[in-house]
């Protein structure tokens, strides 16, 4: 179950590699690589969150804040201080880690869903800061002029170039996480998920493990936020509000929270749903999300990733 299955990874990698080329040849889906940039950015956030949800058994309702911390670190430090964008990504991650430890440490020492409550409040507070500190953040109108990314004179200035950049980062996060799950550390996390009493009796420091996972997920969210800022060159607070935190949870539930694949599938699907397929619902979009979430939790508790297994089981019967 926890061996790396090479076939899906190969298919996935090939798909990601060839997708822009294919899309470029079909006028109907010509703009899909742009959507896939957002899908990739969402993937980064949800990979970390699904590790937190699926293995540490904790839900965060404030990851949009970490996403925003990365984005605003990149935005503020590049436009106000002219810092190198890559350095800003690092500083954003460091800030996200510090904040994650500060928010996570007290609530993760307790059993139960205190983290969900703490992160919910934290997300709201951070969003208010983004809105009110207009001198730094541009307030509700947002801030523009954020530079793009380049490396050794190579500039990620087209959608296709940025597409590959984002998906390379997703691949790194994906393999890091998969390796982690199969390692002794991952085994310890699965142990915590199954029985905290037994895990601690085996010498596993439960609160420390949870804080580390939470911080890791915060770093990924922050990197994703920075990538978003450098792609859009413009950010505003509503991108990083609590509704987005909830959308992140929906992505994971949709894909399936017990595998990292679920995060990837859920994020990509969600990006297409929200930007492409659910547009005609307008203001009622959120109602559709609610329905989707209800349907998935009732009929597909393992998410879409669990669907093939379910069908196979049906057929065998």
């Amino acid at each position, binding site marked *: 179950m926890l061996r790396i299955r090479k076939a899906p990874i190969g298919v996935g990698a090939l798909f990601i590699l060839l997708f822009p080329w294919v899309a470029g040849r079909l006028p109907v889906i010509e703009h899909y690589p742009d959507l896939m940039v957002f899908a990739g950015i969402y993937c980064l956030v949800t990979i970390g969150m699904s590790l937190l949800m699926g293995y540490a058994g904790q839900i965060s309702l404030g990851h949009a804040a970490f996403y925003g911390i990365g984005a605003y670190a990149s935005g503020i430090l590049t436009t106000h201080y002219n810092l190198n964008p890559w350095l800003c990504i690092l500083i954003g991650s460091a800030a996200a880690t510090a904040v994650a430890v500060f928010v996570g440490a007290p609530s993760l020492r307790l059993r139960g869903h205190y983290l969900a409550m703490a992160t919910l409040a934290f997300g709201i507070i951070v969003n208010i800061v983004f809105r009110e500190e207009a001198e730094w953040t541009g307030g509700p109108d947002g801030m523009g002029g954020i530079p793009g990314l380049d490396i050794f004179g190579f500039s990620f200035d087209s959608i296709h170039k940025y597409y590959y950049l984002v998906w390379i980062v997703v691949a790194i996060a994906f393999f890091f996480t998969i390796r982690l799950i199969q390692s*002794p550390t991952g*085994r310890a996390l699965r142990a915590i998920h199954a029985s905290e009493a037994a895990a601690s*009796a085996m010498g596993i420091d439960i609160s420390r493990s949870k804080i*580390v996972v939470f911080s890791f997920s915060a770093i990924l969210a922050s990197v994703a936020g920075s990538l978003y800022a450098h792609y859009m060159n413009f950010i505003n607070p509503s991108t990083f509000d609590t509704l987005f935190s909830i959308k992140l949870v929906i992505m994971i539930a949709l894909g399936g929270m017990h595998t990292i694949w679920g995060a990837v599938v859920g994020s990509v699907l969600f990006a297409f749903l929200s930007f492409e397929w659910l547009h005609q619902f307008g203001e009622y979009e959120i109602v559709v999300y609610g329905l989707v979430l209800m349907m998935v939790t009732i009929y597909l508790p393992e998410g879409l990733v669990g669907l093939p297994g379910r069908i196979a089981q049906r057929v065998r019967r």
Partner: protein
Amino acid sequence: MASEPHRSHLLEIEDLVMAFGGLTALMNIQLRVDKGTIRAIIGPNGAGKTTLFNLITGVLSPTEGTIRFNGHVISGQKPHKIAALGISRTFQTVELFDNMTVIENVMVGRHLHINTSFLKCGLGLPAIRSQETAIEAHAMGLLNFIGLADKANSMADSLPLGERKILEIGRALATDPLLVCLDEPAAGLNETETETAARLIKAIKGKGVTVLLVEHDMKVIMNISDHITVLNYGEKIAEGTPEEIRGNPKVIQAYLGDSIAVI
């Protein structure tokens, strides 16, 4: 006040009190467990046996008193710290990692002997892999010892209760403990399974590991323990060898009642 720690006393409990609000679960408990012996804790339901285990393993912090283990004061410490000092345990309601295979359960028990970090694991460094091979071999050796080697790759939740209890003991041994606390290892087992469990506990003692045992099965207790401590309503009412306990009128009255005939 506290007497000189004796070299052969692995576990020393002094004046231990545990109160939950108005209810005193344990009152002034003194207990000394010698290295390399099997000590049984017996007593009727509600006597405070599991509470005592939870205090020794750090699940609870005592209201008063100290617990010393191998030269360290462990009362009030976190469970994972106490595990690192060499105390391991099983649970009355079997607490296996049901999302893992049998061998993985034992491998979790090697956690304390792994030199690792989040980053090293995520990067998949070769050092981690060679360590994993060693851990797997060690776990396989333990599965042979407890007689579950042929089930190594079965999921833990597919085992019958008897084997689940045995596996839990195996997992507890994987930490290389100096002391294992077994909470009712024979409860719910049939006669053959009980014999297997008793034999295993004796074999653990044979390895030089000290055993602390809570159990209701009198046959098992009389058969394998070196010393027995009897609790009743949170107080220690008797202590001694199985022979001494068998003849102790206080114990007979409090605990065994008419069922003395079955021993």
